[in-house]
């Protein structure tokens, strides 16, 4: 071993354990990128994508007594593997009036609530985007606060508000107005959805409206356009991605809503999420519940794609 050290030659760089590990991995064709991606990809494949496939599979089985309470799709009989698929669940979905009615009434309720939420949320988002900075932060905080508070408790708060002897009816009573029946009606469901999902509408609209260039509005006014015309020809088209994103964020979860119809709605308020719940917990017909889930998925898939496009449009700007 030579001890003379030539100062012009730098000492060999000592590899840190990590670098050694990195090189070994690189030799095996594994890059840092793959390591970053591995955990989320595996997790989401196993716990998001595969479960949806399982739902589809089980929707093609039939109810059975035992554990698990559905028939096996694959069976081995005399050495051959047999695949047994049942379409009965889907046939039932299309022929039984209960399911068809629930399906359409969910879409109707979600659609109407989304429109009402948009009509209330748009002016609110617009106001927040236009007030002075100091106020804006306070108002934004007021929108975000309910978002962090329990959804279930907010729905519960509404029941205390709308029930027969609730706050609204006591208030109306002061003027001698007879109590209104609000609870256990479709009206209560609309109020519930608008109330709980309003922040989801306001936030994307606000993000969009706050970026709106004020000089465009001034230019339009200078050229003699009335405020309404300026709004219809400039503000509204430019805020379209925000409108789409907000509306989808309300519409999609509203379709499958369970808590709101079961706490605020009446027995005749049919919604597909509630039907699925009853099918699963009350009738314990898992394959039927799975078929209902697949049918629901078909309704929300297009809105989900619309949402993704709207979000990309907002991000890329």
């Amino acid at each position, binding site marked *: 071993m030579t001890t003379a050290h030539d100062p012009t030659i730098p000492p060999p760089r000592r590899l840190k354990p*990590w670098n050694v590990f990195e090189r070994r991995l690189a030799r095996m064709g594994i890059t840092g990128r793959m390591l970053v991606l591995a955990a989320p990809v595996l*997790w989401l494949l196993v716990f998001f994508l595969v479960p949806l496939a399982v739902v589809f599979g089980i929707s093609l089985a039939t109810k059975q007594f035992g554990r698990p309470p559905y028939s096996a799709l694959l069976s081995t009989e005399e050495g051959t593997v047999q695949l047994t698929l049942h379409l009965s669940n889907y046939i039932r979905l299309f022929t039984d009036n209960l399911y068809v009615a629930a399906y359409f009434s969910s879409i109707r309720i979600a659609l109407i609530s989304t429109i009402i939420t948009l009509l209330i949320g748009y*002016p*609110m988002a617009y106001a927040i985007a236009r007030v002075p900075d100091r106020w804006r932060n*306070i108002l934004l905080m007021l929108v975000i606060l309910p978002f962090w508070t329990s959804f279930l408790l907010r729905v519960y708060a509404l029941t*205390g508000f709308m029930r027969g*002897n609730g706050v609204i009816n006591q208030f109306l009573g002061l003027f001698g107005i007879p109590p209104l029946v609000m609870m256990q009606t479709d009206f209560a469901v609309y109020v519930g959805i608008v109330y709980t999902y309003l922040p989801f509408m306001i936030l994307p609209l606000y993000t969009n409206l706050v970026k709106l260039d004020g000089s465009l509005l001034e230019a339009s006014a200078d050229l003699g356009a009335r405020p309404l015309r300026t709004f219809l020809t400039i503000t509204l088209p430019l805020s379209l991605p925000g409108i789409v994103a907000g509306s989808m964020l309300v519409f999609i979860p509203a379709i*499958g809503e369970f808590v709101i119809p079961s706490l605020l709605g009446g027995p005749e308020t049919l919604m597909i999420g509630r039907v699925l719940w009853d099918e699963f917990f009350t009738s314990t017909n898992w394959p039927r519940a*799975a078929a209902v889930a697949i049918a*629901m998925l078909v309704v929300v898939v297009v809105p989900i794609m619309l949402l993704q496009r709207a979000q990309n449009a907002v991000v890329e700007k």
Partner: protein
Amino acid sequence: MRRGWFIPIVAALGFSFLYAPIISLVVFSFNENRLVTVWSGFSLKWYGELFSDPQMLGAAWLSLQIAAISASIALVLGTLAAIALVRFRRFRGRTLFSGMVSAPLVMPDVITGLSLLLLFVAMESVLGWPQGRGMLTIVIAHSTFCTAYVCVVVQSRLSDFDRSLEEAAMDLGASPLRTFFDITLPIIAPALVSGWLLGFTLSLDDLVIASFVSGPGSSTLPMVIFSKVRLGVSPDVNALATIIIGIVSLGVLTATIIQLRNRPRSSRA
């Protein structure tokens, strides 16, 4: 510019609509009367009842544990997913990946709950794991949807910040891993905090998914609340709601104040 009256009035009505039910809930939690809506005097007795209800307390403790673990798992997974989506411009399966990350955000709860339950049952019969359902299965389910929320929050922070800082560190010889821990992590730390908190609250709040994937003896707080509320109004739920709303308001208020204090500095820099 001429200011219309229409927008401020609608906005004011909108805000009162958002807050009136919450305020009435808080007020009536201090009501002595069992009939929640008839005021008969100030009392803290529902708070006493709440804290002496072992079922409620047990469920609350279980929910807090589940929320903390799920938020932490989601924090790691969501941050990794956000890094991949923002920093790796192109990779095979990117569209599928970004779809898988953001779909749980809007997926109706009943579908998520049912699909995970069916997965767990199928896995148990094929692999023998997970044995039965309970806290573990709820944690897995919650981590999955919280990952999506963490990812969105971290993603927006990552795409905002100045990449030249990272490039400078790399030019000075820092490895990608070191750059991540010394530069990237401190910069995205606020997003990580809000992502974790968001995951924590969402997990604490979930009723539907937990109902599907929980087992006997593992009722979370929302499940206990729901079974009480379903039967009618119960004043101790008002008390609980008031406590939760108090904690949340304090948290959001602090966060807003910190954010406002920091803003002028960061915009000058």
